[in-house]
């Protein structure tokens, strides 16, 4: 008797829902072990995290503040991942989006009508993010250069470039040496929900998720992207332009991350400053994969991941635990998730040795 894996005829829907949920619970369990080792009570810690993230309207709005950039970058990353294009450059695309929005906010004020300033800043952020993703997309599509590394390397370049700006030429002269630009004119502030820091970016994310769901599942282009991701050879036979589609999809992917950056600087910090991105672009990978690249699911997973970030800050303030606790929990979610993904495509089957009649085995022996 032995156990074999058998490929399922179609992907199991039940496993698709069950696997992420179980993965989250397993990650909490593993996190509890880590907490016990480091001398903290897991129940108290998780309770503090839950209170700090969903306990009050304000706390929940802070969770949303962290979730918004995760939603936008998560959507962006999912588009690329659908084509098996490993865009891990959302962090850099977000950063440059913030830089471009800040450039409009700081240097276009007074030159264009005030009501145009905010839309232009957001547009500039999207364009910058799109171009930053366009470079590795072009290199991949037309020269075949591995995208994992180019997208990642460009993160460092973008972050250093932003640092150069807010430490150097763009630094606020009245900022007492604080690494950041001057605050933007209020006409470039992204509207916030009254009494909270949750901003209009939330509406952008929801609308874009719905639009993306439609485009990816109900249009020819979405179908083309899916085919490219699943089977490049088939895509070529169907006459789908692979290179062109990679570039187009990545421009869109980068634009979404750029939008996230533009929303961060106009909605939260209202200036370009150190710590624009706290690893959103990397967490976006977890968001996209856990949501199984479904745009609607991205919204909910982003809230969960945002909660882990806010929860990490909370346990730092209330219990003196490192805020990176949230990152550790996020990092652990994908392990059970990856292990479980086997069950969406395969099923386990126990095979009993078939009854063989002694005569048959004799003939085999004789033959050999």
């Amino acid at each position: 008797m032995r156990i074999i894996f058998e490929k399922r005829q179609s992907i199991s829907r039940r496993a698709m829902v069950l696997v992420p949920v179980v993965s989250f619970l397993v990650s909490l369990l593993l996190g509890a072990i880590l907490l016990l080792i480091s001398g903290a009570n897991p129940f108290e810690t998780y309770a503090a995290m839950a209170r700090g993230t969903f306990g009050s309207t304000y706390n929940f709005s802070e969770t949303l503040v962290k979730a918004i950039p995760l939603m936008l970058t998560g959507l962006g990353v999912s588009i690329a991942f659908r084509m098996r294009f490993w865009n891990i450059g959302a962090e850099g695309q977000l950063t440059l989006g913030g830089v471009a929005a800040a450039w409009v906010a700081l240097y276009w004020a007074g030159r264009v009508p005030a009501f145009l300033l905010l839309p232009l800043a957001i547009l500039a952020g999207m364009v910058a993010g799109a171009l930053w993703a366009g470079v590795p997309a072009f290199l991949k599509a037309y020269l075949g250069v591995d995208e994992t590394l180019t997208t990642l390397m460009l993160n460092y370049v973008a972050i250093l470039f932003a640092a150069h700006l807010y430490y150097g030429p763009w630094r606020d002269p009245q900022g007492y040496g604080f690494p950041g630009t001057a605050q933007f004119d209020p006409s470039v502030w992204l509207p916030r929900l009254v009494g909270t820091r949750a901003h209009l970016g939330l509406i952008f994310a929801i609308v874009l998720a719905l639009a993306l769901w439609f485009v990816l599942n109900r249009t020819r282009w979405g179908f083309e992207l899916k085919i490219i991701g699943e089977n490049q050879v088939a895509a070529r036979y169907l006459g789908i332009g692979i290179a062109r589609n990679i570039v187009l999809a990545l421009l869109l992917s980068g634009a979404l991350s750029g939008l996230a950056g533009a929303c961060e600087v106009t909605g939260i910090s209202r200036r370009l400053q150190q710590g624009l991105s706290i690893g959103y672009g990397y967490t976006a990978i977890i968001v996209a994969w856990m949501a199984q690249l479904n745009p609607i699911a991205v919204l909910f997973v982003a809230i969960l991941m945002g909660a882990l970030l806010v929860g990490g800050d909370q346990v730092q303030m209330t219990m003196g635990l490192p805020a990176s606790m949230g990152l550790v929990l996020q990092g652990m979610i994908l392990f059970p998730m990856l292990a479980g993904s086997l069950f969406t495509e395969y099923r386990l089957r126990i095979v009993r040795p078939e009854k063989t009649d002694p005569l048959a085995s004799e003939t085999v022996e004789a033959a050999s």
Partner: protein
Amino acid sequence: MIISLLTSVLSITLRAGTSLVYATVGEIYTERSGILNLGLEGMMLMGAVTAFATAYYSGSVGLGLVVALAVGAMLAAIHAFLTVTMRANQVVSGLSITLFGSGLASFLGQRLGPVSNNYYLVGMVGPKFTPIRIPWLSKIPVLGALFSQDILTYLVYLLVPLAWFYLYKTREGLNLRAVGENPQTADAMGINVTRTRYLYTVFGGMLAGLGGAHLSLAYTPGWTENLTGGRGWIVIALVIFAMWNPARAILGAILFGGINAVQFRIQAAGTTIPAEFLNMLPYLLTILVLIVMTWWEALSKRIGAPAALGNAYMREDK
């Protein structure tokens, strides 16, 4: 003047390149078995933080190395389990190892420190590897720099030829290459594909942990957040640059170690180029290396990537 400049550039190159060689050789072995490990950055960070913490409390740098090897091995074992046994996507599994490893390294860095420093490891001074000058040899102009390094750098001089010899001149090396080229055939030849892939993924993780330990115990002694600064990713590019040959791993390390040295010298000499732009050099160079290698591959058909790299092997799938 020029002699001392060259000596210092060579010396920094070697010191900066050491961790890269360890991780590159390790990743070459892993990829030769058909497994792509993008978790190197996380493994190096974890190796660095645990090695430093161990050395700090035990006073023994050697023990720090042992712990870094073990931590690298454990993280790599997770990757091997997910990709070999559970046939998970290798890219995503590697990415999650990196995300998990950098998160946990940051957590440990704020937890393992002494009470007096609020449990922070950052800013602590611990034992470190110091350069050992070899008599006579270290006196040679310029090349003397080769012989006034720490022990981990000397070990690199041994590791690289040994790794080359094992891969190309031994039975086990042949088996390893067979698994990475064509697991079906290797399986039919009686080589245990699963075992081979586990073994060399774990081996690669150990070397990545060691590379991380060299950073926190020798190159820039101590722990800071994101100590590796993307070295784990640069290594992935260096493997391509080395065309999966351990002997050539040294070239990439020299190139990138050299960039560090040049950066350092330009900064020391006083320049109007903003520091941020100088710091971009290694990352831009990585992209350039990738473009050149890809272009070269297009010209000469094949630069040596194992044919089965990135593919899970499942007997039942035939």
